[in-house]
């Protein structure tokens, strides 16, 4: 019990301090707290895995070192908060227009129904399949068990027996850390992590859109996400696609805040979030690259205003995750499933394989359009809502940047399927829905941010 309090309490304390640094107003907690908790979990995973590589001989020594690191992190954040009290920064953002009451009532009603439906579904699936779906127990939770139960002796050899050992370890190492503190590998931890990541996405999406485009718009965006059947299924299945979707969305939200407020803390946190996406899944490494390019362009085009410090903040923020990922590749080297064995001949042949391109485009397009629904999924409906409501012309830079990153991510997924060594029908059938789930929250966010707002002045 004491272990669980220390193991969870210190990162939560750090998260609260970070949340207040990002914005000291309690009213902004729905925006800042999910971000801070997500970053704290990512950092807890990166620190724990790094400590596992040190030559320590017992679980107690590992937990002692981990506790010491987190006490130091909390102490530094506390000292920083005392010396440099957080302040509210004035921005030139336009305040959101207030929606009519009847419109807000419809938006909130749809949100409540969709939320009740999604929560019931997640609870029911978790009760019937508490170990998650195949991917969860076959590798994400299996990796976590190897790291936790195999420490200090057998975890390296144990990792070689589990499928997909080239997959990064944010969720497995984070779970292993919780299990080590708890003293047993309780199944409540992966269920809680999956549900927490899904809830964090919904709250962050709603809060970010509510702040920028009004509460009713925030409710609609959250209702759309909760109404996506594939999202609730992925959360209940304990797929790592939900935590990575959280880091994708959090990066875009913080990118927007960084541009609006010009505060280094937002750039730092955005870099950290993109880094943790890379530490969650291999797709996150492509995301880190593309979002770093878009951030560099944003900073460069307004360099007189920003200077070079934001870029340094992004890099520093991403460092813990990049360090953990580098150590993971060094300590447990394994070939990349798709890139290993890729020859120039195969690349040429696949690039000219029109039938393969068509099959991939059909599968991904189907998932984007339907997303587990029958006639039309939430993405086409939300696109229509945005167009009907009226959109900003030109679209805000962050919307164009996020759309570009999401588009290039989609192309990256298509290329992975194109060069995949696996049977294409099997590969698409087992993963296309999940990879689109990664992009749906950020897509809904970008669509909602694209909508037009009335101009006035607000603080952030």
């Amino acid at each position, binding site marked *: 019990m004491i272990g669980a309090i220390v193991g969870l309490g210190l990162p939560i304390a750090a998260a609260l301090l970070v949340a207040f640094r990002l914005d000291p107003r309690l009213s902004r907690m729905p925006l800042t707290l999910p971000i801070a908790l997500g970053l704290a979990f990512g950092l807890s995973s990166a620190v724990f895995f790094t400590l596992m590589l040190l030559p320590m001989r017992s679980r107690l020594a590992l937990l002692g070192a981990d506790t010491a690191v987190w006490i130091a992190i909390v102490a530094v954040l506390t000292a920083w908060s005392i010396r440099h009290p957080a302040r509210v920064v004035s921005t030139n953002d336009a305040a959101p227009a207030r*929606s*009519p009451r*009847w*419109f807000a009532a*419809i*938006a909130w009603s*749809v949100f409540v*129904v*969709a939320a009740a*439906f*999604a929560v*019931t*579904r997640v609870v*029911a*699936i978790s*009760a*019937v*399949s*508490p*170990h998650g779906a*195949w991917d969860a*127990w*076959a590798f994400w939770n*299996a990796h976590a*068990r*190897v790291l936790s*139960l*195999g420490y200090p*002796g*057998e*975890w390296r*050899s*144990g990792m070689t*027996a*589990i*499928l997909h050992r080239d997959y990064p370890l944010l969720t497995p190492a984070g779970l292993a850390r919780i299990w080590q503190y708890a003293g047993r590998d309780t*199944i409540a931890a992966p269920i809680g992590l999956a549900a927490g990541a899904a809830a964090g996405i919904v709250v962050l999406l709603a809060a970010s859109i509510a702040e920028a485009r009004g509460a009713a718009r925030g409710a*609609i965006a959250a*209702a*759309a996400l*909760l*109404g996506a*059947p594939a999202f*609730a*299924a992925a959360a209940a299945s304990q797929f790592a696609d939900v935590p990575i979707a959280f880091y994708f969305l959090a990066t875009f939200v913080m990118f927007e805040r960084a541009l609006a407020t010009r505060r280094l803390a937002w750039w730092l946190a955005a870099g950290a979030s993109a880094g943790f996406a890379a530490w969650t899944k291999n797709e996150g490494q492509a995301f880190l690259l593309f979002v770093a390019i878009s951030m560099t362009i944003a900073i460069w085009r307004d360099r007189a205003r920003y200077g070079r410090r934001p870029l340094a903040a992004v890099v520093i923020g991403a460092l813990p995750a990049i360090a953990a990922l580098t150590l993971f590749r060094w300590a447990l080297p394994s070939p990349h499933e798709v890139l290993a064995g890729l020859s120039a001949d195969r690349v040429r042949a696949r690039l000219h394989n029109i039938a393969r391109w068509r099959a991939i485009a059909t599968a991904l397009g189907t998932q984007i359009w339907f*997303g*587990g*629904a*029958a*006639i*039309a999924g*939430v993405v086409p*409906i*939300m696109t*229509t*809502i945005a167009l*009907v*409501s*009226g959109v900003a012309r030109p679209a805000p830079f962050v919307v164009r940047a996020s759309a570009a990153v999401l588009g290039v991510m989609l192309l990256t997924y298509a290329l992975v399927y194109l060069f995949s060594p696996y049977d294409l029908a099997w590969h698409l059938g087992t993963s296309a829905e999940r990879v689109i789930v990664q992009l749906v929250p950020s897509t809904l966010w970008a669509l909602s941010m694209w909508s*037009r707002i009335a101009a006035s002045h607000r603080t952030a």
Partner: protein
Amino acid sequence: MTRLRLIAAALLTLGLLWPAWAGEPDLAWQLHVWNRLKQAGRRAPDSDIDAANRALLSYLPPAAPVGFSVASLAGRTPADQQHLEQFLQYSIAPRPLVLSIDPDFVIESGPPAGPASLAHDPSFVLVVAINDDLRLFRRVKR
């Protein structure tokens, strides 16, 4: 926003309930299974399988690879077989599970009367039978 646009947006917002409803058949099925489990006073099937598999842990060495053998494939698809093997690996982690009878300890699945069962092999001795489908053997001579 004009009133007409607002009404259209409100109608489309109501339309978001349509994709949400697409998850209803799955929800109904999950609730049905959950109720049946509660009525029978049973845990989730995966939890039962995991508990049965983990009952083997106290008989296994902490680090050495563990063999896996199937006494009979009758009534099982390749997907069933893969599920069985990978779930067993999940349960006995961090011990590596290898599809071989070379290791000193071998977990066998399938009916003990099956033609390929290690029960008929004099170089193995039964350590424990967890249930009708899961047994652990130890090699007695090389």
